[in-house]
């Protein structure tokens, strides 16, 4: 089919009453919308990702307020509970309860920031901008990918800020530890953003966000082992924690931290213990694999759900 485009550029506005000169035909020719489909989709991914970063960088208040909650958990709750768990963490063991909580709180930061970023799709829908994206001649998958990349980047940056606090909770600033944590944070961020995007594609109103917070995010957080060790629990709770995909990323992060602190074998046994299925202790690789698999599933779900959004 021939594509006859109107190659007429928009000229500069002529002053009222003035005779407009004939437009030069050569000057900025009307743009040609074409090119490989993949290249177009990649540009879409990139620009959707960039938009998330622009919005994040412009909202300094959000960056600061997002730090309040983890800091409260770490230093108020962490310190408050320290006296209760003093028996398991005797003085001179080299770590405090805050050391134990630290990876959990970093994971919490990732969780909340990533969910908030991805659920912003619902705000986009409310304020109409989603429509601008949905009517574009790009694949929906590209939009989802861009949104997830954006949310994951933002959540990772936010969690990286938390790593500054390592020194205050007896965690060494070891480059290998920081790199390991950063990589795991990124994986967690991608997974949670994919989950959030899948949820958001089904949400019609902003009010649904509260429902997601109460029924999805908080249970995910509390069952993840971010705040307490997940062994020696009653069976029902033990089972629930193993069903929480977030548990499979909190554990590797904690293992990384405990591999870098000097403590007594007893403390390491209690607080640095690894996630197990019955008597099977999961290797880190498997835990990361579970997280990645869950993330991939959610991503597929998000793309699928988004494809049928109008």
């Amino acid at each position, binding site marked *: *089919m*021939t*594509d*006859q*485009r*109107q*190659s*007429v*550029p*928009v*000229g*500069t*506005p002529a002053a009222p009453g003035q005779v*407009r000169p004939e*437009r030069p035909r050569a000057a*900025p*020719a*009307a*743009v*040609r*919308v*074409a*090119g490989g489909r993949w*290249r*177009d989709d990649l*540009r*879409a991914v*990139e*620009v959707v990702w960039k*938009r998330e970063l*622009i*919005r994040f960088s*412009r*909202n300094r208040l959000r960056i600061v307020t997002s730090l309040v909650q983890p800091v409260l958990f770490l230093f108020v709750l962490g310190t408050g509970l320290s006296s209760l768990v003093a028996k398991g963490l005797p003085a001179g063991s080299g770590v405090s309860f805050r050391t134990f909580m630290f990876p959990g709180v970093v994971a919490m930061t990732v969780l909340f920031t990533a969910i908030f970023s991805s659920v912003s799709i619902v705000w*986009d829908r409310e*304020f*109409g*901008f989603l*429509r*601008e*994206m*949905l*009517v*574009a*001649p*790009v694949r929906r998958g590209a939009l989802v990918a861009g949104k997830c990349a954006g949310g994951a980047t933002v959540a990772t940056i936010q969690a990286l800020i938390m790593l500054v606090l390592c020194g205050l909770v007896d965690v060494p600033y070891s480059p290998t530890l920081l790199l390991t944590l950063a990589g795991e944070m990124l994986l967690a961020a991608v997974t949670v953003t994919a989950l959030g995007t899948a949820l958001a594609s089904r949400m019609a109103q902003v009010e649904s966000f509260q429902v997601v917070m109460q029924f999805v995010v908080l249970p995910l957080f509390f069952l993840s082992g971010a705040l307490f060790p997940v062994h020696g629990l009653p069976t029902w709770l033990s089972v629930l924690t193993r069903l929480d995909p977030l548990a499979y990323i909190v554990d590797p992060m904690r293992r990384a931290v405990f591999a870098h602190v000097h403590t007594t074998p007893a403390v390491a046994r209690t607080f640095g213990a690894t996630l197990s299925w019955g008597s099977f202790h999961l290797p880190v690789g498997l835990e990361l694999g579970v997280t990645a698999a869950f993330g991939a599933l959610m991503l597929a779900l998000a793309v699928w759900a988004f494809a049928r959004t*109008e």
Partner: protein
Amino acid sequence: MVGAGDGGVATEAPSAIDVHELARRFGDLDAVRGVSFEVRAGETFGFLGPNGAGKSTTISMLCTLLAPTSGRALVAGFDVAAQRAEVRKRIGLVFQDTTLDDYLTATENLRFHAELYGVPRAQAAERLRAVLEMVGLWGRRDSLVRTFSGGMKRRLEIARGLLHSPRVLFLDEPTVGLDPQTRAHIWSYINDLRRRESITMFLTTHYMDEAEHCDRIAIIDEGRIVVIDTPEALKASVGRDRVQLQTADPRAAIEALERHFGLEATMSEGAVTVYVASGEQFVPRLFAELDVAISAVSIARPTLDDVFMNYTGRTIRDAEASSSERMAGSMWMRAARRR
């Protein structure tokens, strides 16, 4: 004016929009009941009708946002159901509700659009400047959109709709919710655009005065096109202008009108009223031949209100009242069924 394009095989300038028996049904509601029309390249075509007449449903189908239940529509030569991506590349959209990101600047909103629509980066900056200048927002390009007024946002959306040089620009109620002054402003931009871009425009409106700006209008009521023609022809089809005279002696005037012109005059709103085919040709004769002193004359043209009334037997406001009942009833039924 159609440009040389890609240097492909030149064909007869195809119609920009070609619609055949397009229909859409929502449950029990026939929102659009088989409409057929053609919009020529470069034309400004308006859909005029009350709220709930099927205007937005039709425009949604043409923009590939809604699948037709039956019928066929080609936009820029591509099928809206089977070739959605091809259609989308070639159309610009200005929706009823704003679809801008308030937390981005005007430029950032346009850049976003340029990237999504694959505008070559080398041309994007120049094109961006051109469209922003056209709508008078170049000076505000780096302001956050949240600081813009309603009219400025609508102008920015028009600029954005043009950024990727679409062949057809769809405007769904482009001035709804704006004050009269801003509406006039938007229309001056749209008219300017018609002159300089020679773009095809398809717009919907339920404002009679806005439909006057179109080259041709389709009057749509209850999901059907009642008539399609130019505003002038539609008004002419109503027939007659209304001429009203103020005079010291109405009875003599009525009698004289009957005697000289064979017109049946009546008293209405305190004035002698006659209906004639062409008011401006009648008035000079009236002055020359009528021997009764006239103190004032007014000529009233048939408005599109009269046209709507003429073709549907009711005013657009009455039509809106009844169709909103129809919609509400059907919505309720749909909601009930979903449970």
